[in-house]
């Protein structure tokens, strides 16, 4: 079965994630950079999920789940640090 549109959508997500590096580079404040890094994380996860569906292997889903958990922990930690209570 031809399922190459999944690979096309994965490349779309990766392209969007690469575009967000602009905001990561020139964000005026630290909060902008943290939010941009979190969004890059989420878009990379979506690309990993689509590649797992394309190749039919469940290992990439484990990697995506671990990346999602680490991204959430990192964002919350940066938020606490910016608030001044760390």
């Amino acid at each position, binding site marked *: *079965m031809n*399922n190459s*549109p*999944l690979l096309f*959508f994965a490349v*779309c*997500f990766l392209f*969007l994630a690469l*575009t*967000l590096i*602009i*905001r990561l580079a020139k964000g*005026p*404040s*630290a*909060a*902008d950079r*943290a*939010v*941009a890094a*979190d*969004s890059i994380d*989420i*878009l990379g*996860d*979506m690309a990993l*999920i*689509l590649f*797992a*569906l394309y190749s*039919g292997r*469940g290992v990439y*889903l*484990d990697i*995506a*789940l671990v990346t*999602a*958990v680490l991204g*959430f922990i990192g*964002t*919350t930690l*940066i*938020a*606490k*640090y*910016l*608030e*001044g209570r760390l």
Partner: protein
Amino acid sequence: MIYVIYVLIGLSVFFALAGVVGMLRMPDAFCRMQSSTNIATFGVLGVIIGGILYSAIYLQNGGMAVKLAVMGAFYIVTNPIASHAIAKGAYRHGVKPCDKTVCDKYGEDME
């Protein structure tokens, strides 16, 4: 059925594109956080639902479907928490809204 899955994932790509454009063009930090939550909710849900359908119907793999459901529940639970925490942290850190803002109740409460 495969076209339903492709349409779901395509809608997800569209919402992610809208969120990325908003993050690049919005005027201040809080508007950009709103666009980022657009990526994190609608950009995720289409891929998750389409992936559950695809792995359950075409791949015949129940483990992948359950993993995707767990990931979707995790995203739905944790993204509002992270967005709320980083908005509050940014305000306390000293990030100001742009000049066109008409209402700032949180700043009035802090004084």
